[in-house]
């Protein structure tokens, strides 16, 4: 029979000794959502460091005009691999890892709906990533041309045709991402089915935690938006290997068609990437403000609206290709409209904090920085949505500044908030708060120093994706400042990794519920046993632990 007693009575964990090979086997063969979730996240962090190092080399090259740290071919591969890695091998596995780890715990289930599909998703993602990086060795193909792909992360045609991209480097880009994308779709399918079919008794959709709601909509977006990318990539493969004409302008094909297909995927993709941060904030901010999320229904509505509208804005990446004024106006309008539900979310988070008792611990610090940085990112996004302004800003460093503000200032900061928040649950140890604060402040300073100047560079006419520039264009000063910011960011990440490693070894014990939380993951031990809950919980509101901790003032008396 299902029941929930707080604090939990459960037997102490068994101490078991496994040999190294037994442990390795357990991890490799696991279908447990928690282990797979951690594997996704650790792999993503590894790729984050690799792609971050690539960015550091790029910033070193651009720190001075006419610099010779790397030549054009190397630089072009660096920005291609940096972008491709960050989007597909860092962002997407974080989506999968966080939802796989947390969703079953939050809905009171014992695992995902399809555990073996879950494992398949992880391993095929890893394979795809390794295939992409194998290009460094195998990209030469039979002709000896090429190494890693150098066509940019969005690989515009006809630069990607066999004529202009000889060797196999582009093929590694296509196949690596195609294969990893299958993993993403598998994971998303799993999340959808789990959320619909495996909620614990009493947990209606309206009582689901916001985190689960956001990841559900995220998964919807994935299964709708990933196939266009797969389709376009298959078309490109047909062009490159079978002599097809999808993007062959000599045969009457359209180079712009690739852009349409890519961005029909690409724009929802960036929302797919940011949703985990939205999800994390909607969990962390209430707990650290000691107040429920302000306007839950509106928050759900906003996420659904963002998901829906984001499918209709893609051509704002194409304002310069010469579409009709009707098309330009339509996409400008839809792109501005998507800012409205996003703004609502920022307002609701702020209103959650208003009147609360803010505990400014590390997770909350990252959330506060997110709010301000994502606000800036959203506003520069509005600037880019206004097509006449975009005609100047498109493909310049202004855009680079904008999307790094959304992806680092937004997503990465949100992910750090989540990692500091749930690390104790996953490992049973707390992360060191002092190191966390150092990490936070170093990262903020480094991030702002690197990416605010990029907006100025765009305004001064500096285009994207150039490996060097002349000293008389007025770009020297801000490029140098931007490059200097890398030092603080690198130090921050190093501190974080040290914090993680050291805390796993000898961190303070966390207990079941170190943050005084309200959702179901805090109702089991840290780390949770393989079966998650001894007895499946029964819930009556969206804050089941609040109800148990405040029996005279439970949520279900006030919620609709």
């Amino acid at each position, binding site marked *: 029979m299902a029941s929930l007693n707080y604090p939990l009575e459960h037997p102490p964990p068994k101490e078991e000794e496994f040999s190294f090979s037994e442990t390795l086997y357990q991890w490799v063969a696991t279908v447990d959502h928690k282990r797979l979730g951690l594997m996704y996240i650790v792999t993503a962090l590894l790729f984050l460091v690799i792609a971050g190092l690539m960015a550091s080399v790029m910033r070193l090259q651009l720190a001075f005009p006419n610099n010779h740290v790397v030549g054009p071919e190397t630089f072009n591969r660096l920005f291609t691999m940096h972008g491709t890695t960050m989007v597909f091998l860092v962002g997407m596995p974080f989506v999968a890892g966080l939802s796989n780890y947390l969703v079953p715990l939050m809905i009171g289930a014992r695992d995902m709906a399809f555990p073996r599909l879950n494992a398949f998703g992880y391993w095929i993602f890893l394979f795809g990533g390794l295939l992409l990086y194998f290009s460094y060795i195998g990209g030469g193909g039979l002709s000896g041309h090429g190494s890693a792909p150098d066509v940019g992360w969005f690989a515009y045609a006809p630069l990607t045709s066999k004529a202009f991209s000889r060797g196999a480097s582009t093929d590694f880009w296509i196949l690596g991402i195609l294969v990893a994308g299958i993993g993403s779709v598998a994971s998303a399918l799993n999340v959808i089915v789990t959320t619909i*079919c495996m*909620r614990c008794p009493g947990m209606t959709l309206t009582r689901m935690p916001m985190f689960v709601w956001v990841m559900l909509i995220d998964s919807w977006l994935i299964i709708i938006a990933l196939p*266009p990318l797969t389709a376009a990539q298959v078309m490109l493969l*047909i062009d490159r290997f079978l002599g097809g004409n999808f993007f062959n302008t000599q045969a009457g094909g359209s180079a712009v068609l690739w852009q349409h297909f890519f961005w029909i995927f690409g724009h929802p993709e960036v929302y797919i990437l940011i949703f985990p941060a939205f999800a994390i904030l909607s969990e962390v901010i209430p707990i650290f403000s000691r107040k429920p999320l302000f306007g839950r229904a509106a928050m759900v509505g906003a996420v659904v609206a963002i998901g829906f509208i984001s499918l209709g804005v893609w051509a704002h990446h194409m304002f310069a290709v010469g579409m009709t004024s009707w098309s330009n106006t339509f996409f400008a309008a839809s792109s501005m409209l998507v800012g409205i539900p996003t703004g609502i979310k920022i307002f609701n988070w702020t209103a959650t904090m208003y009147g609360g008792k803010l505990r400014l611990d590390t997770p909350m610090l990252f959330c506060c920085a997110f709010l301000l940085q994502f606000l800036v990112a959203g506003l520069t996004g509005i600037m880019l949505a206004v097509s006449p302004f975009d005609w100047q800003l498109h493909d310049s460093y202004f855009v680079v500044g904008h999307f790094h503000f959304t992806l680092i200032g937004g997503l990465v900061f949100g992910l750090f908030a989540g990692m500091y928040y749930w690390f104790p649950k996953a490992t049973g140890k707390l992360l060191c708060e002092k190191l966390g604060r150092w990490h936070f402040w170093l990262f903020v300073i480094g991030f702002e120093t690197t990416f605010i100047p990029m907006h100025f560079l765009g305004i001064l006419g500096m285009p994207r994706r150039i490996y060097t520039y002349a000293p008389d264009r007025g770009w020297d000063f801000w490029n140098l400042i931007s490059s200097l910011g890398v030092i603080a960011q690198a130090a921050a990440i190093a501190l974080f990794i040290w914090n993680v490693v050291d805390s796993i070894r000898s961190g303070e014990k966390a207990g079941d519920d170190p943050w005084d939380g309200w959702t179901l993951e805090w109702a089991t031990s840290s780390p949770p046993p393989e079966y998650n809950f001894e007895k499946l919980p029964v819930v009556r509101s969206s804050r089941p632990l609040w109800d148990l901790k405040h029996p005279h003032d439970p949520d279900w008396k006030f919620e609709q």
Partner: protein
Amino acid sequence: MTQVQTYKGDALTLEQGWHLPDRGTVGIAFLIVTDSALFTIFVVAYLVYIGKSLNGPMPKDVLDLPIVATICLLSSSITVVFAEHALKKGHLGAFKLWWIATIALGLEFLTATGVEWHKLIYKDHLTIRTNLFGTTYYSLVGLHASHVIVGMVFLLLVMGVTFAGFPIQTQFRRVRFLSWYWHFVDAVWVVVFTVVYVVGR
């Protein structure tokens, strides 16, 4: 026990039972959604390039309406429903019959496609690289045909284990999922047929 009793007055009580949809059903439904998104892009590419080929052969010169193949494929959706009903009632003999009919009709469709392609390639000299029509035609029809092949593999698998004595009625749920996939493939054919053989010619 106590928890259940205190929830008596609640609208969604456990006394009414906590029923959520079946995992497999929802899984197949969303698999169909994601697959539709994939087909949509190939259909869009086909539509965009209608009339844009710089050289022949052109669709109306070389495409004949595949009436028989279409009738066979769409009928196979009907036979698979009969097979399902037979299985549900436990009439194994009828099930086997209707299942084989489904497979045969699917095989006819694939054969007809193969014959058509043979003619297009060797007689009309239309290949995937000839022009925009060739590229989009073989891609779209090929994508559909590959989905038919996948369906056939599973249909044959079910037939194989049934004839080997496996109690297939215990897997009725999964047989039903397969038949939904098969209906999806047929629905896609309706779209492909319309776009390629009606609109595009």
